[in-house]
């Protein structure tokens, strides 16, 4: 079973040279730590920055420079600032190559729920609905099951929807799944995890074609 760093590391293998990438809060943020050697990726922060860098050293903290998680950050060479309309404009227009975000539930048709739990204080969707509605390539980083062991890869989302039919790929602690018209297509297993175990833990339609390889980490 992968820990959150393993999930992030596996997602980083999806990055390609020249990609503009939006990383959501949580596990997706960790992907930035595993960008493969030799490729250049530009990170978008939807509060208005392309070219997000690492956290600042203590003596270079700038209150006017934060990411979408409201954390202090830095910029890298070649960065650019813009307003929030342009930021979501470039997302809507499909300029951002890859969006990585977390989810509470994903359905086998690509629906995603990640903003609201009935009965709990609603904090708001922030930019999640804009991102999932418009991004051309969305990878979800998530735990396969909830704390009680119930699958979060479902035939249909039970929580309020964030977006319909938008997720292209799921990387969970158990495996990598492409979303196809026939459901979750298992393409890689986490190290040491059997297809039987994945079948048991996946409530949505699951497609397993022949031998499924274990994940490879560079």
């Amino acid at each position, binding site marked *: 079973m992968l820990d959150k760093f393993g999930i992030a590391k596996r997602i980083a293998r999806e990055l390609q040279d020249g990609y503009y990438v939006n990383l959501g809060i949580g596990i997706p943020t960790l992907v930035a730590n595993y960008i493969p050697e030799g490729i250049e990726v530009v990170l978008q*922060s*939807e*509060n*208005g*920055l392309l070219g997000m860098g*690492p*956290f*600042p*050293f*203590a003596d270079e*903290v*700038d*209150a*006017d*420079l*934060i*990411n979408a*998680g*409201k*954390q*202090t*950050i830095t*910029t890298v060479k070649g960065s650019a*600032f*813009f*307003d*929030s*309309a342009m*930021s*979501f*404009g470039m*997302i*809507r227009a499909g300029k951002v190559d890859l969006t990585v975000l977390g989810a509470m539930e994903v359905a086998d048709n690509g*629906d995603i729920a990640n903003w609201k739990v009935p009965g709990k*204080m*609603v*904090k*708001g*969707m*922030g*930019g*999640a*609905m*804009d991102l999932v*509605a*418009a991004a051309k390539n969305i990878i979800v980083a998530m735990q396969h099951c909830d704390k009680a062991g119930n699958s979060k890869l479902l035939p249909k989302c039970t929580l*309020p*929807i*964030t*977006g*319909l039919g938008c997720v292209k790929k799921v990387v969970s602690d158990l495996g990598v799944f492409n979303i196809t018209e026939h459901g979750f297509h298992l393409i890689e297993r986490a190290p040491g995890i059997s297809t039987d175990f994945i079948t048991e833990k996946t409530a949505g339609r699951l497609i397993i074609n022949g031998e499924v390889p274990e994940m490879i980490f560079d």
Partner: protein
Amino acid sequence: MRKIVKNAAEAVNDIQDGATIMLGGFGLCGIPENCITALVKKGVKNLTCISNNAGVDDFGIGLMLQQKQIRKMISSYVGENAEFERQLLSGELEVDLIPQGTLATRCMAAGYGMPAVFTLAGFGTEVAEGKEIREFNGKKYLLEYAFDSDFAIVKAWKGDTHGNLIFKATARNFNPLMAMAGKITIAEVEELVPAGELNPNEIHTPGIYVHRIFQGVNYEKRIEQLTTRKQEHAR
């Protein structure tokens, strides 16, 4: 050209109970601190506030919530505020949560003189309830209306006596959009200079959108999530 006002108190002096006001900023970054303080002091009530967030309990818009000055909040994310939650649950406060990009674009539309825009965001979700839907090239879009706001209050880094504004880093966020969208726009700036001293090539918001401007004082610029890395990690 008489846009300069003395201070925040003068800038917000004619904001009445029941007004709709936009407040720039993302989290606590780029918020109009001086005007928020002035609005709290003035005690104006029953406000509808359009702002991406609602501050924290003891800073930003949270200060106005503490004084129960806000009747309705239009935001995309309001998670950092216990008093907000209390007022919402008790029914004292109404909240309209809308996607962040939709919020930004509804400000932009107002500033560009467009009554409405179509966006994909929220289709198939509860955000779409009751909204007009149109299909373009096989995709379904929601009709979202431009905001209609009595005042917009923004914070800029530099400004001049004609109201031209320059923003800094990610403190830009919603500020230029809201500046365009208010019937009356108030800008507080860290540095106010005579017209001619800012490079016209570098202006983010042309002064035509700004009605009142003043140099703010004592900016705290509180940080919500201080994150740093250690010096031994080489760059």
